[in-house]
């Protein structure tokens, strides 16, 4: 009932070596920086790039060429067939797998409706916008009802509201879906909403794996911490004192010993113009190195020991008249800091 893959691919100087397991009905999200090998892994699973071994429900796929593998792929650049109508593109998979024309067309139209493009059934792909093309590619992959669904950033080109709708359609589809799904994405929200498990790929290796909430709360690499928007450090704990590898010391609430990861949200950091006298045990001088205006808060990039990101309200920005180069005091309650062993 499981898909198990040991992927070993070498392309130019790049080397992928990762073991993946996907349960039936499970959705695994593959996250990682550009060039981490996500697309390469998907290609190997689909049988487009040789390398490694795949077994699914006990049967080995190793010798099988792509068209004999029960996979559906959404490619990063869609690869819609330019000379076919949108409907024919979506109906192509069912037709190729032996469905009769009328039925394949009906099914294709159904899938087009799900991505909100039934009006474009007769259009040529050339006349679609980027986001429309991506939705057609998604419909095309879903229309074959494959054992293994491989989605390479299937929502990247969608606008915010379509994305919301297509994502929840996709979530609904995947919840009732019997096969195995592997989803490549750069958006942690997609992963949170759609995936049962997250695998983080960096430099061709899986560096972290786990349930979405777990990964979000306990990142193990800078990339993941960035991804979920946490301040992240490596350090060595001696009881409630953590000496950070890159300089600085933090006092935490939960005692620990040995090498640990340290995380806290940017919103846990407060900024003061004068050294505060109050209760926070962690107070250190910082210099503003950057300011980014977000929709409802302002993110401040601070140099110091340690360097830190802080989210402050617009009122605070106005009050402190923040400018790059300003010298401030950062303060952080020990109870907001989360540590866990490395």
């Amino acid at each position: 009932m499981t898909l198990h893959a040991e992927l070993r691919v070498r392309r130019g100087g790049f080397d992928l070596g990762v073991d993946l397991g996907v349960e039936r009905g499970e959705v695994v999200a593959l996250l990682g920086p550009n060039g981490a090998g996500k697309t390469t892994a998907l290609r190997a699973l689909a049988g487009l790039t040789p390398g490694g071994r795949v077994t699914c429900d006990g049967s080995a796929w190793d010798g099988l060429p792509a068209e004999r593998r029960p996979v559906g792929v959404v490619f990063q650049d869609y690869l819609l067939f330019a000379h076919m109508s949108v409907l024919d593109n979506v109906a192509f998979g069912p037709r190729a797998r032996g469905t009769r024309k009328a039925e394949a067309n009906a099914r294709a139209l159904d899938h087009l409706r799900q991505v909100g493009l039934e009006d474009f059934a007769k259009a040529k792909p050339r006349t679609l916008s980027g986001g429309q093309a991506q939705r057609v590619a998604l419909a095309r992959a879903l229309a074959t009802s494959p054992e293994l669904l491989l989605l390479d950033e299937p929502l990247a080109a969608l606008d915010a509201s379509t994305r919301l709708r297509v994502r929840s359609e996709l979530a609904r589809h995947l919840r009732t879906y019997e096969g195995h799904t592997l989803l490549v994405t750069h958006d942690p929200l997609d992963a949170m909403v759609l995936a049962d498990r997250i695998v983080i790929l960096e430099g061709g290796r899986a560096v972290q794996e786990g349930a979405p909430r777990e990964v979000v709360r306990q990142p193990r690499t800078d990339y993941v911490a960035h991804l979920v928007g946490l301040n992240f450090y490596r350090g060595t704990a001696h009881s409630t004192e953590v000496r950070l590898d890159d300089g600085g010391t933090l006092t935490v609430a939960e005692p620990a010993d040995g090498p640990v990861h340290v995380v806290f949200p940017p919103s846990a950091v407060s900024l003061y113009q004068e050294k505060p006298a109050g209760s926070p045990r962690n107070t250190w001088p910082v210099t503003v190195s950057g300011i980014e205006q977000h929709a409802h808060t302002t993110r401040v990039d601070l140099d110091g020991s340690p360097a830190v990101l802080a989210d402050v309200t617009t009122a605070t920005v106005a009050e402190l008249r923040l400018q790059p180069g300003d010298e401030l005091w950062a303060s952080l309650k020990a109870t907001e800091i989360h540590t866990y062993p490395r």
Partner: protein
Amino acid sequence: MRQRLPVVLVLPALAGLAFLLVPLIGLLVEAPWTTLPSQLVSAEVGEALKLSLVCASLATVVCLVLGVPLAWLLARGDLPGTGVVRALVTVPLVLPPVVGGVALLLVLGRRGLVGQHLDAWFGVSLPFTTAGVVVAEAFVAMPFLVISVEGALRAADRRYEEAAATLGASRWLTFRRVTLPGVLPGVVAGTVLCWARALGEFGATITFAGNFPGTTTTMPLAVYLALETDPDAAIVLSVVLLLVSVAVLAGLRDRWIRA
């Protein structure tokens, strides 16, 4: 919004066009137009013209059926020795057509390597028949189709074929529905070359199929014979052949351009 066309491209292009077209203008100027109407209605000319069109079209069909798969095999087969095979395919181009005809006789003639068995077992004899004309034309014209379709296949983006494979399409279905439509302009170009070459084919045809009016005398053969007796008539016949071929090709223009 339209850009000026660059002189450095347009000048050689026009020179090339002139180079190809001025000799035709020369022919048209010299052609004894007064005899044209009588030539056009002459039964033999009509017969030869019809035979030419039919044979060239049949030969083109044969070339498409055999040549497009061959081009695919050369471009996609990943077989060893493809380079040499590709070079061998061009051989009928290099072979003087008359020698090509001799080669066909050696193989498919009544006493040829293959022909003797065809004759003995099936009672089929190709030389000196209309079928023989088609064979000779196809032999000479096929390399044009193969090489240009192969060039088009090589330039095509193979990832669309990969996408088709992941949708469960066999290589044959992929070929029919994805690869071939994708390189249609290349196939059209190859087909045009092939048809035009077959239409103008002379040396291999007269050697392999002989020159029998109504059966194997195509327009180029008629032109050749006319050169023996009436050079002016030969030019008129050539002009007729030209006009018909230009009419056919320009008439296909819409499909051609759409491709």
